[in-house]
């Protein structure tokens, strides 16, 4: 004796946001029922567990049928199968494309390939996100990656229009795509302390300043926001003069020290470390023509700059003031001709470091 078939179809598709979240989180129907029961939904409407099970199954089926449409959200608006009010469509899409920061942190910068997908069970075990949910999130990354790969124009805007996502989410996806494309190393132990949002911020900086599209001459080039501007990377080599030319280096140091004196407790350390730190930053710039070094950009920033500072117990304010003067003083060096490149480089590095330097 059993219910063999049990369906409920509304003219307006009925969707419970709570169940949707449970489904997205990869819970099985039975788990979802358990969670809902604990949530007390039964008490408020005098229903039994059977009713809850039946409702949950129905909703799960509906979501499964909708899932296909969510692959290309634009379809959701003009498909005829489900009558879903626009504000609910927006909710469905936004939630479907939402991701867990802990999960994305694990795959950030990795190649979105089958191999990575195979390792998702490890990620799942490590992060506590269900495998099903991991797969959905991973597939979302991959889908977005594939679509924007072939599109011209600004990355964030493309994602937003194509997937009908909110601005915030579109920016996050842009970061993910950017990281995946350039394969930035984010998994090293030294980088573990950084959150996805830290990286997303940096990605935004890089996209806005260092890519082909950032220059803004022709904004209809493929991958304009994904690939770094090669010319710019070449020009970065010129910055080497700041550390190779001894006069310049000393001059730079004295300018910075003059400005900083008395303004910070860490002044002594700053003075002592100036040459090291400056070499670190300029060397990072000079090496960026190598793809390998691009990948290590963040680890280099941490190793060459952030760690030394942290071991000297700089505060965030120290960091801010130091970098500001370090950056600005270069303008006063009369033999230093590469002001434009320097600004483009330091602007980004500065804000990245600010973001990455946690007290």
């Amino acid at each position, binding site marked *: 004796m*059993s219910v063999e078939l049990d369906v409920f179809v509304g003219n307006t598709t009925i969707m419970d946001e709570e169940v949707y979240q449970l489904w997205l989180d990869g819970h099985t129907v039975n788990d979802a029922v358990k969670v809902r029961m604990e949530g007390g939904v039964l008490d408020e409407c005098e229903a039994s567990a059977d009713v809850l099970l039946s409702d949950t199954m129905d909703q799960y089926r509906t979501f499964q049928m909708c899932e296909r449409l969510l692959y290309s959200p634009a379809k959701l608006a003009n498909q005829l199968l489900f009558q879903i009010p626009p504000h609910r469509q927006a909710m469905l899409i936004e939630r479907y494309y939402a991701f867990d920061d802990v999960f994305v942190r694990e795959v950030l910068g990795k190649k979105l390939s089958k191999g990575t997908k195979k390792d998702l069970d490890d990620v799942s075990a490590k992060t506590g996100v269900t495998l099903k949910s991991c797969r959905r999130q991973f597939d979302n990354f991959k889908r977005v990656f594939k679509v924007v790969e072939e599109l011209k124009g600004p990355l964030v805007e493309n994602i937003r229009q194509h997937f009908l996502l909110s601005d915030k989410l579109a920016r996050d996806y842009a970061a993910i795509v950017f990281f995946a494309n350039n394969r930035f190393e984010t998994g090293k132990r030294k980088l573990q302390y950084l959150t996805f949002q830290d990286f997303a911020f940096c990605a935004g900086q890089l996209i806005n300043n260092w890519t082909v599209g950032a220059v803004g001459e022709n904004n209809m080039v493929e991958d304009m926001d994904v690939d770094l501007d090669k010319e710019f990377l070449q020009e970065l080599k010129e910055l080497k003069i700041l550390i190779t030319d001894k006069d310049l280096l000393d001059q730079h140091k004295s300018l910075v020290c003059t400005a900083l004196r008395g303004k910070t407790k860490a002044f002594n350390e700053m003075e002592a470390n100036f040459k090291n730190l400056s070499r670190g930053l300029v060397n990072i710039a000079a090496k960026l023509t190598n793809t390998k070094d691009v990948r290590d950009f963040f680890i280099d920033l941490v190793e060459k700059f952030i760690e030394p500072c942290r071991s000297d117990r700089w505060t965030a304010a120290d960091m801010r003031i130091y970098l500001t003067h370090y950056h600005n003083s270069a303008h006063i060096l009369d033999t230093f001709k590469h002001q434009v490149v320097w600004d483009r480089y330091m602007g980004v590095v500065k804000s990245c470091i600010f973001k990455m330097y946690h007290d």
Partner: protein
Amino acid sequence: MPGKLKAKIVAGRHLPVMDRASDLTDAFVEVKFGNTTFKTDVCPKSLNPQWNSEWFKFEVDDEDLQDEPLQITVLDHDTYSANDAIGKVYIDIDPLLCSEAASVISGWFPIYDTIHGIRGEINVLVKVDLFNDLNRFRQSSCGVKFFCTTSIPRCYRVAMVHGFVEELVVNEDPEYQWIDRIRTPRASNEARQRLISLMSGELQRKIGLKVLEMGGNAVVGYLQCFDLEGESGLVVRAIGTACTLDKLSSGAAASINTHMHPNTAPASNACNSPSKDGKEPVFTEDLPSSSGPPTPFRALPTTSSSPPPFSPSKPCSRQSSSSDTDLSLTPKTGMGSGGSAGKEAGPLKTLLRQQTQTALEQREFPFFTLTSFPPGFLVHVGGVVSARSVKLLDRIHNPDEPETRDAWWEEIRQEIKSHAKALGCHAVVGYSESTSICEEVCILSASGTAAILNPRYMRDGCLDIGSSDHRFEEPSPPSCGFCHIPYDELNMPFPAQLTYCYHCRRQKVPDVLFTTIDLPPEAAVTGQGCLIQARLCRLKKKAQGEVNATAISNLLPFMEYELHTQLMNKLKLRSMNALFGLRIQISVGENMLLGLASATGVYLTALPAPGGIQIAGKTPGDLSNEHHILAIQKRINDTIAKNKELYQINPPELTEEAVGSPIPEPRQRSRLFRSHSESSDELSELDLSHGKKDAFVLEIDDTDAVEDIHSLLTDAPTPTGFYSCNTEIMPGIYNWTSGLQMFTSVRVFRLSNANLTNQGLNKIFTDLCENLLKSLYFKLRSMIPCCLCHLNFTVAVPEEELIQVAVTAVAMTFDKDQSQEKPGDRAMTKGGSENEEQLQFPLELCAESTSANNQPSAKIPGTVSLLTPAAKIYQNHLITIPPAGLQESTNVSSRAPSVDYGSFADRCSTWLELLRLKAHTIRRGSVKTSRRTQSLARSVSSSERCSPLPEGRSRSLRSTRSFGGSSVTVVKMTPLSFLPGTRIVKYLGIINMFFIRETTSLREEGGVSGFLHSFIAEVFAMVRAHVAALGGNAVVSYSMKECVFMENPNKNQAQCLINVSGDAVIFVRDTDQEATPAQMNTGQTCNSGTDGAT
């Protein structure tokens, strides 16, 4: 000849990938009408092809235009092999043939494949140029409007109601043709879909012709069904009510009711009403001589001039016997009205009646498929009449001669007609027909409500009559008028307990009223109504052919009887006294019969308060038993009290005056009976049944009875904030807001336990229905406070151990604060056609007709409560018709005020043994009621209820937020004839669609549930798309008429057939000034509340 059909294929989108190699599709389109086919160019390598074809023109007969659908096939071009079909779209162009409906069909249609479901969409443009054809002998009936709505469509005024139209066409079912063995499932499904589409078109055309013949221009309450008779063929049949409708200029609220007319020529079978011309009783010719002057002593239908269709052998019950008497009517009427009523009513009425009668009798079947009527149309309601017959199916040899099926229905209708006569009524309203088929056995059922109608609607030349008519209207029908008995109180067709109407105090009313119609808008109710269901399973032995048919025939009366008892008990338990929208469905399976009766119970203010239920033990000595009984009694009393509170039934306190003497005088009783041989026996037994209305006693004498009582109490109350009913709207709730959610839910239950008892089965079935309801409440909890309206259950036994229940209904929100009040402005309640509702409640306290109460009431045989079922049982009879068929016919009649097994059993000597056990389970007791004194309390309460509200306060003006972006027209669907808070400005034509879906990869599609879920969603999508293409934004009177589901999990296969219908309309919000028809994109209808249903 006259018609040029033009079609243009614009574009496609979301097409499936047909070429794996390129992940693309080379699509082209074939457009076919009749035997002509056009093709578009191939649009290579695109999933979103733009064809932008030329106009394909078809020059065709209008006959074809009506019958044929436009068939659009999307294919994938393949250079080397056969082109692959992607899917099809069938477009019914009927709406284009009527000038008042749609003028163009334009929009995106889902491309449907019977194996894969929806596969992308196609944008099509269709137009028709129609030339006038004045040929009198034409075979087409273009221009006749069809409405599924079972009331006068809003935005029309009815000039005349012509009456019943029916038609039936038969064919071989392609699924069972030899060729089916060699063709693909897809080809077979498509052949079937096409055939049914053709047959529907043909049927509609033929009915249209009949309507034109009658002088009408529309069919209202059009109900089309088909019977899949398997091997023996495919029957498509339809019934409806022919009318002449005038379009109201939108906005101008011409009151529909204004004139309705009396008998039109064709229509004249009808009415009894004051005849202006005939001052004297005019008896129709067919009146049997027996119908003499109305004397109290007239033995009614002595004259068993039974018409041919009835076998003489039929043991007659009162009802059936009455059938023979078309005649009894006249005489009775005189009496009926006479009783206590003012003089003015008496003679006048008689005249009225006679005239109506003549009018109605001239027509073959004075049936009306309408369930709600313009004010004044319905004069009195007699009760439910129904008939069933069991037939053996035989192969249809010649599709052009559907005579056999016609004859079957003819018989049933005759029977219904005669039952109505027996109730003193000349017409049947709320009429419907249905079938249930299992293998070669078919149960045909018909039911309706016997009624007396106002003839003005059926007569010609209403205008001139109008003037003379007014005098009859003067005593304008009180809101309680329809409750008054139409039959002669001294010569009642069945014993009922009569009292003076609690509203007007002038006329007699029964203590309980059952009907198949909606609650008349003018009716006064106390508190809210609720859904009442009786459910029943009966096992039967597996058998073949005639044996099987006989077994079923024998079971039917018992089932009807028990369903009836259950309904009655549940009604009492809820302290209500009337049922509306009663629908009794009996489904046959190989080894069981399922019965499901649904209705909406209400407390009609005009009817007496129902008595309670008393439990009596069989063995008074046994203490423990007695204790048990006390406990049960307490539970019942508690439940009644709780229900009263729940439904807010606080009838005005009336100190009851004695109604009816306990024992009918013998003389009176004798009048009750016809001169049939059995009558004398019945007579003597009747005494057992007498009782008072307060004395509804259930006797517990065996476990069955305990079970029964148990099941009585197991119906879970609806959760707080919810109401439910199966009628259009909930009696007692008037301030709907715009939240709306139509849904369909289907459940199939597998019985794995081989040896089930009837009780066990009943419990399972009851639980199934109850759980389904609970699930619905849960699903829709976000809409609270809301009411599930038009809850329409359909049960079936698709296979031996399966029970299928399907429900379609709509959840509507209302404003809780004002639910008690009846707003003065009705427009907000209903679709804004002000005309429809003129619900002013007569506030005036009916001047009580003084003496009336005391005296006559004593004479009323209040005690003799004979239950209908008893009557039914008698009609069991067997007719062998030529192709070896079995017929059984039962008559569920009317209102049985109460149930009495005792008299029933005794009279049915044949079934005596069988019934013995039950015989005493329920018996009326006799408890004295106190004398009723006229209390005015009532009036107070009623005036409160009527206080008009400032308009708009209750109207929910949910802002229509538009979210932009979406390009898909939002289409609302509802099984009701209106959308709350809106005005229907145009009817675009009928939607009648039939789909088959089949799969050979059931598991992959999510099992049976996944399969059916997506199919139902697809059907909704296709309905919406068609409506949107017609320029509409809603479907009203939507119903799923058929949902046949078959599975074979072992083979990983399943198949499902669905038939849906409704009326495509354009509505505008009450708040919107001008009609914004056509495609109203997006937000328009998405108001937050509605769709927000989570």
